[in-house]
Structure formats: structure tokens, C-alpha cells
């Protein structure tokens, strides 16, 4: 167990301090305190509900690996690889596959039917149980992931910045539907030491190399101390602003996204919360200041579009048929407007 900050700065420091003779390193750690971690290219203000985090004393850290905003706490065991670049596959997807293999094998050892879900997640029964991230840092290539023992979906939904509370409910609903944990799968928590032991064994098998315990060098410790300070500066945390033309979206897992969109038509603004699953529209909620008669049919339109392919033809065909069948009157809004409003999620 390490401080929340060290759960990030240790692996970054090992990468920055890496010399050609430094052995490849696998770090296993657990954060002592909960925190929010944003991806390297994310905008803090756009992604995180800072007032909620402040009120709960939850710190926020920007990491140098990719991916989205995550809530992290002691219910997770992190696995972080800091490797010589030539010791990992050059193609990023192949690198993730190698990193994920021992995670999957460990889950399986405990009876969880986990599998690799391309490009870089671990799933069990269509739910995500592990996410990963990677980066070239210093002279090293880094890959990170976690074992999800237990997870607080409610806090995760609260730390994200969302347009309104109804969108937040949809985030929570999506997390409940699409996230798995070891506790949820097994009904009980497996022993931490046993998980670590099996993971090290599975890592050794996947890499074809023996793993031995190591200690930090003086330079690595100095790098940690430098990064502890840097990661807390406003300059580091506040860098990068999201371009204005990107609509708000929250990733639930690879392939499942929740989008909040607004689309202006002659008849008024159409606001939608859209959950997409691959190339399908998985769930849709419509609000706005437009006129739609019979009004009760609006919910019918939401239902109709579930599982429809996110393509111009499929959406237009379904909406036009719906308008004709139910004699819909929506002044200033035609089927094409709905199609354009929905397809914003593909931008």
C-alpha cells in the first residue's frame, strides 16, 4: 500500500530514471487513499466535478498515460510495467495483448471467466473488469492496468463532470450494467497476497522470464520526489483544454460510450443523452424546447431507435417510418434533423 500520489509517481519515476542497464520492472501497488486520475490529454475542468471532489477531499492527479478519467481506491491492485522498449511488441495493440495475458490468466485462476477485449480491456460476461493505459516515458515504455477487487460505481458517477443530474443517473446506470468486479463475480473477495502471487507467476509465464524482487535506486527515489511535487502543481494539472467543438462524452468501456449532445433545428434545440455500443444506438433520452405531437410518442421514438445501426440510412428509414405510422407533427424538425443530431456522436 502506497500513498495515492506514489501509486502514480513510482512508475513514472522508474521510467524517467531508466538507464540502459536498468532491468524491466513490474510494480504492484494499492493506493491508500481514494483519488481521481485523468488521462494525459484530458482537460481537468471538462472531465472532473471539482466541487464534488473538493467537498469529499478527493484529490485529482494527471498521469502521463492515455485513456480517460478513473476513480481509484484501495479496492484496486495496480500492475505497472516499466520496460525497455525493445522488450515489448512494437505494435501498440500487440503490446496490450501481452500485458493483458497474465491479468486474464490470473482472473481465470480464481474462477472468473475473463477474456481479452480488444483493443485494451479485460471483460467478463460483457462487462469490463480491467482497463489499461500506456505511454512512452523517458527511455521506457510503460503499460498499466489493474485488478478490480471492488468498485464504487456511485462515487465514480459523482466525480465525473456531467451536464445535469439526469445524465449522471445514466452514467451510473451504465456503470452498473457494464462494469464487473471480482467481488461481484465471486460473491467474495479473493486474498490480496494470493492474487499477487498468481499474477507474478502468470507474468513470468507470459514473458518467459523469471521475476525477482528488487529495490529502488537512489536516482529512482529522487525522481519520485521530483514528480510528487510536479504532479501537484496547477500548471501540470490544468494543462490542456478540450477543443470547443467536441460534444461531452463519457467512456463506460471500450465500445460503450455515453454522449450528451445538443442540436439546433428550425423547430428548437434537440438535447439527447445517447449510449452507443459499437456501431449501435444502445439507449436514448430526448429532451428539448421543440414541439412534438402526439407528445406521448416521443418515448416511442426513443424505444424505436434502440439497437438501430448508427448510419444515416438505417436511422432515416426508421424515423421516417415512425413519423408516417404515428402521424407525427414536429414543426421545424424533419427526419434528417434527428439523423444529424444523433450522428454527432460519431464526430
Amino acid at each position: 500500500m502506497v500513498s495515492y500520489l506514489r501509486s502514480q509517481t513510482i512508475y513514472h519515476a522508474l521510467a524517467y530514471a531508466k538507464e540502459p542497464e536498468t532491468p524491466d520492472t513490474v510494480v504492484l501497488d494499492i493506493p491508500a487513499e481514494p483519488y481521481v486520475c485523468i488521462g494525459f490529454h484530458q482537460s481537468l475542468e471538462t472531465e472532473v466535478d471539482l466541487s464534488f471532489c473538493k467537498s469529499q477531499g478527493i484529490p485529482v492527479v494527471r498521469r502521463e498515460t492515455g485513456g480517460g478519467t478513473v476513480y481509484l481506491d484501495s479496492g484496486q491492485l495496480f500492475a505497472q510495467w516499466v520496460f525497455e522498449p525493445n522488450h515489448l511488441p512494437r505494435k501498440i495493440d500487440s503490446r496490450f495483448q501481452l500485458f493483458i495475458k497474465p491479468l486474464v490468466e490470473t482472473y481465470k485462476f480464481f474462477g472468473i471467466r475473463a477474456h481479452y477485449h480488444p483493443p485494451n480491456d479485460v471483460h467478463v460476461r460483457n462487462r469490463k473488469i480491467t482497463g489499461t493505459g500506456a505511454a512512452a516515458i523517458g527511455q521506457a515504455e510503460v503499460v498499466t492496468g489493474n485488478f478490480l477487487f471492488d468498485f464504487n460505481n456511485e462515487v465514480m458517477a459523482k466525480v465525473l463532470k456531467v451536464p445535469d443530474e439526469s445524465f449522471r443517473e445514466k452514467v451510473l446506470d451504465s456503470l452498473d450494467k457494464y462494469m464487473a468486479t471480482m467481488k461481484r463475480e465471486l460473491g467474495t473477495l479473493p486474498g490480496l497476497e494470493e492474487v499477487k502471487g498468481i499474477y507474478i507467476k502468470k507474468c513470468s509465464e507470459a514473458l518467459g522470464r523469471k521475476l525477482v524482487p528488487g529495490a529502488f535506486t537512489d536516482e529512482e527515489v529522487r525522481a519520485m520526489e521530483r514528480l510528487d511535487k510536479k504532479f501537484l502543481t496547477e500548471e501540470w494539472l490544468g494543462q490542456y483544454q478540450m477543443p470547443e467543438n467536441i460534444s461531452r462524452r463519457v467512456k463506460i468501456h471500450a465500445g460503450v460510450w455515453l454522449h450528451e449532445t445538443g442540436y439546433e433545428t428550425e423547430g428548437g434545440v434537440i438535447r439527447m443523452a445517447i449510449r452507443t455500443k459499437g456501431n449501435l444506438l444502445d439507449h436514448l433520452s430526448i429532451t428539448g424546447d421543440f414541439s412534438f405531437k402526439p407528445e406521448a410518442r416521443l418515448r416511442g421514438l426513443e424505444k424505436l431507435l434502440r439497437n438501430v445501426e448508427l448510419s444515416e440510412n438505417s436511422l432515416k428509414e426508421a424515423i421516417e417510418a415512425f413519423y408516417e405510422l404515428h402521424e407525427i407533427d414536429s414543426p421545424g424538425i424533419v427526419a434528417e434533423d434527428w439523423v444529424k443530431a444523433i450522428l454527432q456522436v460519431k464526430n
Partner: protein
Amino acid sequence: MAHEKINECIIFTNLYYAVEDNTWVRVNDDGTVTIGMTDVAQSLAGPILHARAKSPGTQRKKGRPIATVESGKWVGPVKSPVTGEIVEVNETLAKDAQMLNRSPYNEGWVIKMKPANLDEDLAGMVTGDAAVEAYRAKIEKDGVTCTHIEGSEEY
């Protein structure tokens, strides 16, 4: 423009390449250089989601990052093949990072730089047939086959 194709990877013979870092340099008439990622680099990274270049006015030494790119969940630097001052960045990439995948040698350029020691830096790079041979060896050694996303420039 003359180019070669090795395992679907495009190599232009009029550009200079830092092969290990997978970057290219085009020498412009006004004394500046344009720098970008190679076709091999975009293929290894996969579809790029974010790209952020350092600001104009930034001084960079050869080998230091001039931009970061994120594909899937991997973040990596674009390392400068020359020493100098960044004079222009490709603003398109902040809004459409996949331009790096679709047009790595043209519209997907990363920065323009006023070089400090151009002759010396170019002497450490390869161009023409030597670049093609260097990439042939690298592509074969690393087992790379280039892939191109929908809408990529065709050659």
C-alpha cells in the same frame, strides 16, 4: 513525388528521416523545415485520438519532444530530429488528430522549425535510396506491415 512502398509502408525519397524515432524532415525554400511522423509511426500507433504540439517560440534540441500523440490509450512523444525553434504548429491536428494517420507526409505535418544546425542534423539522417534501404531493414527486422485508416491518401 517519388516514393517506395515496403510492406505497404510509404517512404518518400525526397525527405530526410530519423529512422529510429520514425520522423521525417522536409527542407523548405524559406530556410525552415517541416517535421512529421512517418507512415510506419502512424501504423504502429494505430488511430490517433489526440495530438498536442509544443507552442511556437519553443526551443527544442534534437531528440526532445515537439509533440505528444495518443492512440487507443498509448501516449508517446514525437521527437525532434533537428535542433531549433518551433515557428508554426499544425493547428488542424488539435481538432482532427487522425490527419496524422490519413496524411502523415502532407496535411498531417506536425510542426515547422527554424533550424539551428541544419547541415549537421541532416548529416545524421538518411534520404533517397539510403532511406528506402534503412526502412526496408527496419520494417523487416520489426515485422511491420503498414495499415491505413479509411480516407487515407493513396499512392
